[in-house]
């Protein structure tokens, strides 16, 4: 266990170093923007995977919390009464309460019914955003920009500072989620995914545990929304539309749901795919659709999951071959 923590810390440090060095090596703003997008959507996808991959709860409405993060943060900053750190904490707290209310209703339902009710709540929130024009700006989104007053000597109006800030927040959230992924709580979640009845017999309060992870995942998604709102200096109803949830699910499936970092890999792949396909062809949907079909029908799992499985199989066959060889040598 201890070596696991050390390894996680090492991987985290390498990741931070990589994310910080990349824009220095390639000082184009486009790369920085790309990475901020990947981090914001990566947080959305990873937090959703706490539900999908870890607990087996397929939520179709996770983007509701992404949007709630963006809007709450934007509105708090526009009110001009609080600084960025306080606004962020209040946003995460507020979204957690929202997720608690929605989750308390949703987690009692099973399978596809859970998916549908989360979708219903998300679309409900989306139409509130569209309807409450005086507060949210309706379909135009939150206009007027989101101010970024300096705090503790950090001025986020500088592009590089903003980038570093995003990296730090991103890594912090990843660390929290990694902790959950490895904790006894995380293993309880896996048990609920694989056999809820047994989990219940062993004394786990299934509804309560599910609600716990639902709230946590919602809060983490809101941080993704905050990062995106901070970056684009606005919030738009599309953040909470069902297509955003669909994209997050797609990232998970593309990357892989059983590897912790899989969804982020999926986010990178999807963004790259989007980017290059639009450069080379107008028929973006045709290519993307074909790629999905190949992955789903060919690999039958996410790319990262496939690679992990493939490496494992290779190691096993090698081990088998080695043992056969050593037996022959002994004989």
């Amino acid at each position: 266990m201890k070596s696991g923590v050390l390894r996680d810390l090492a991987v985290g440090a390498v990741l931070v170093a990589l994310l910080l060095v990349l824009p220095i090596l390639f000082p184009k703003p486009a790369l920085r923007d790309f990475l901020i997008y990947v981090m914001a959507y990566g947080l959305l996808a990873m937090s959703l995977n706490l539900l999908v991959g870890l607990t087996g709860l397929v939520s179709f409405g996770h983007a509701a919390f992404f949007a709630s993060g963006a809007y709450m943060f934007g509105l708090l900053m526009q009110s001009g009464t609080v600084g960025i750190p306080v606004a962020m904490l209040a946003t995460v707290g507020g979204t957690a309460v929202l997720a608690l209310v929605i989750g308390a209703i949703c987690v009692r339902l099973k399978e596809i019914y859970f998916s549908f009710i989360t979708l219903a709540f998300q679309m409900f929130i989306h139409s509130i955003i569209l309807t409450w024009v005086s507060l949210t700006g309706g379909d135009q989104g939150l206009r007027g920009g989101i101010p970024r007053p300096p705090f503790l000597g950090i001025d986020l109006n500088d592009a590089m500072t903003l980038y570093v800030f995003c990296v730090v927040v991103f890594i912090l959230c990843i660390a929290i989620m990694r902790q959950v992924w490895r904790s006894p709580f995380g293993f309880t979640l896996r048990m609920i995914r694989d056999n809820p009845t047994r989990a219940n017999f062993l004394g786990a309060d299934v509804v309560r545990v599910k609600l716990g992870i639902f709230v946590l995942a919602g809060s983490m998604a809101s941080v993704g929304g905050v990062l995106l709102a901070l970056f684009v200096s606005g919030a738009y109803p599309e953040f909470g539309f069902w297509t955003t949830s669909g994209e997050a699910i797609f990232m998970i499936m593309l990357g892989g749901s059983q590897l912790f970092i899989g969804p982020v890999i999926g986010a990178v792949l999807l963004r790259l795919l989007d980017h290059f396909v639009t450069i080379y062809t107008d028929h973006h949907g045709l290519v993307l659709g074909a790629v999905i079909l190949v992955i789903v029908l060919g690999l039958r799992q996410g790319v990262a999951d496939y690679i992990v499985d493939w490496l494992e199989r290779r190691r096993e066959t090698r081990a088998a071959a080695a043992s056969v060889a050593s037996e022959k040598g002994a004989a």
Partner: protein
Amino acid sequence: MNLEALASCLSTSACAVTQVSTALIIGMLLFMVASGLSLIFGVLGVINFAHGAFYMVGAYFAYAAYQATESFAVAFLAGALGVGLIGILFERFIMSRVYGKDVLMQLLVCYAAILIFDDLVKIIAGPEYKMMGMPEAFALPPLEFGGGFVPAYYVFMILASLAIGIGLWLAIEKTRLGKIVRALAINPPMVSALGINTTMLYAGVFGVGSLLAGIAGALAAPTRTLTPGMGLSILIESFIVTVIGGMGSIVGALIAALLIGFTRAFGAIGFPLFVDGLMFAMMALVLILKPSGLLGREPAR
């Protein structure tokens, strides 16, 4: 919010009749799409997220056939049968590979199909909006009901979908084949053990479900603008309908589709921005109180 407008519309019979006819055509189209979705889910246990795309393809087939032959009957058949065939091929070559896999795999496969169909339509028919126009046969004066006027085609559309719905219900409840299909929904191995080719039956049911989406598309073509993305909104609405009505229930789908039709038609006057919100609120309410839907059979909890 403009509830006065809603009240004043309801108090004049002309406006009320117009809105009721709008509600009925929205409801019946939704019923066609949703009953196909519901049938496929009820028997095969998969959710065909590509159903909206099938609706769109049906509309485009009807449009193309109408351009070529000027005959609405041919256009209708082209939409219905063309999409039915596509449904069978889709089931055989793609969907059948993800049976029994988790719902995410089915979702992704269908998402891929939606992207591909949308783009194919864009390539073949062009990205611009298309109007089929009212067929010659229906160039009749509008019919009058209590002071309000309803186009003849609307009346035809409502009656045709009602007839198809009743036919479908009779086929499932009263015929031998319907009995087999119902048995297939409950116990496939047993049906198979009795010497019935379940693979063919699955493809057939999927084909009929798609056919219904194609019919909806063909019926909608004269009254709607055709765009490559037209399938998405009807897909979401037919989900609401299947959830409210109960998955696998044809009668439930009809009731729920009419409910949504009326919500849309009258909400458009009273609270245009919150129509979607209200529909999803109803769906959430049904899921909380009775997750299996109004007329769904199996308990969901």
